[in-house]
């Protein structure tokens, strides 16, 4: 049982972590032969017939090629058949056996250290932000046909596992033939795969991935995520915008009243973040109606009011902060007092907040 990592083993954590972030997001290799062999192996291991493997350059290309195939020719959506089989036969069983081997060989403190330093940080860099974004983009482009039922496997989703497995392999804790094969498949550049009964689509990596220091997809100079097929995804601090709105926000060309009129609270929040705050003074009849210095989590709360053209009543907003993220929000209200405004946003008059996250 390994209870303590050596200095060399601790240094290796960073090396493996950085390598997998690079493999997942930044390398250019796209080994079609290796990928095709890997996909066929996964179908074979799942007792399924060999599919046709179609390489795609991004979400748009996938959408085009998916639509070009007559729906019947790709076969059924395979969450139930291919999905369950591939997942159970390859990914889940590989994951489970690796976890079991590692669990039996390392102590709790080593487990926690590797999880925090290798797995979680790769997951944060790649998994949460990029995988979700690509998934959304793919599903949006072919929602009617694919919906949520597509079965997938991907480098961008499994880089965390890759880093975790390879780290333990390098320090001689685990070695698993199936895992090696799966890791080889991931390393070949299979960024995002969608499996159907007769056809498997494999997407290459994006050509551009830009993130902020919190590893959220973010760019103020262009798309945060761009694929070879021309798909461009604009994001600011992890929140997606269409190009027109992204452009207005990064150039700060909107009037504050326009920003306050944005109906999506996250979009409004980001637009406000990028706005020159001196513009608030331009709001007609701008005033602070009530102010609480500490909301219980160290943040202030305010109710602000101003008037805009063609709206008879003054607009009022509860200006508050998320206790978990510290993000600043403006929520429309009819109340003049902070506490009343907060309670009224849930349709209540008097509440004791036990905890807020």
């Amino acid at each position, binding site marked *: 049982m390994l209870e303590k990592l050596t200095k060399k083993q601790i240094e290796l954590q960073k090396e493996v972590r950085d390598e997998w972030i690079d493999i997942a997001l930044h390398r250019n290799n796209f080994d079609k032969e290796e990928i095709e062999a890997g996909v066929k192996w996964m179908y074979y291991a799942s007792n399924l017939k060999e599919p046709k493997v179609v390489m795609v350059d991004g979400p748009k290309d996938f959408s085009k090629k998916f639509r070009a195939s007559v729906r019947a020719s790709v076969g059924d959506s395979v969450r139930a058949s291919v999905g369950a089989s591939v997942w159970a036969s390859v990914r889940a069983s590989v994951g489970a056996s690796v976890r079991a081997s590692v669990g039996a060989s390392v102590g709790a403190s080593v487990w926690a250290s590797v999880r925090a330093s290798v797995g979680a940080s790769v997951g944060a860099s790649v998994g949460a932000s990029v995988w979700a974004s690509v998934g959304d983009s793919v599903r949006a482009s072919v929602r009617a046909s694919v919906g949520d039922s597509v079965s997938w496997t991907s480098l961008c989703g499994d880089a965390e596992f890759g880093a975790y497995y390879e780290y333990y392999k390098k320090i001689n804790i685990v070695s698993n033939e199936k895992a090696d094969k799966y890791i080889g498949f991931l390393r070949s550049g299979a960024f995002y795969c969608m499996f159907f009964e007769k056809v498997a689509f494999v997407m290459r990596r994006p050509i551009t991935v830009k993130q902020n220091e919190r590893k959220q997809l973010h760019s103020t100079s262009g798309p945060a995520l761009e694929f070879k097929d021309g798909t461009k995804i604009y994001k600011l601090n992890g929140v997606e915008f269409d190009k027109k709105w992204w452009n207005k926000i990064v150039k700060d060309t909107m009037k504050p009243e326009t920003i306050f009129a944005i109906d999506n609270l*996250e979009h409004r929040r980001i637009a406000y973040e990028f706005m020159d705050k001196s513009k608030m003074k331009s709001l007609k009849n701008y005033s602070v109606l009530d102010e609480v210095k500490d909301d219980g989590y160290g943040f202030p709360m305010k109710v602000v009011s101003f008037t805009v053209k063609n709206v008879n*009543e003054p607009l009022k907003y509860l200006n508050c902060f998320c206790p978990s*993220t510290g993000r600043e929000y403006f*929520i429309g*209200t009819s109340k003049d007092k902070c506490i009343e405004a907060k309670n009224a946003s*849930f349709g209540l008059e*008097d*509440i004791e907040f036990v905890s807020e996250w």
Partner: protein
Amino acid sequence: MKQKAYRHGEILLLKVSKLPKGLELSKSKTIMTGSHGNNHDIDNGKLYFKNEGTFVFGYLVAKDTNLLHPEHKDETGKAKIKDGVYQLLKQQEYTPNGLIPVID
């Protein structure tokens, strides 16, 4: 006496004395799906979905329940609530044209 509540982003969990009758148990562990792919989930407990007016959209019977969300959590990565029955309310914001759900 004030009613006790937990807030998890745009969701409020309001402590109530009992579960209304006739609710159907959901198989889901997702309280609400986030528009940016960030769901409000639970690890343990039972969910019942039923819209009642503008704010209420269901109930939770919590037992050893943590609220899960990529962003709304404490330093342990979880948000633990006391066992009990909770009414689930979705935050709304006022506009001159009426209430609209907070979209995040």
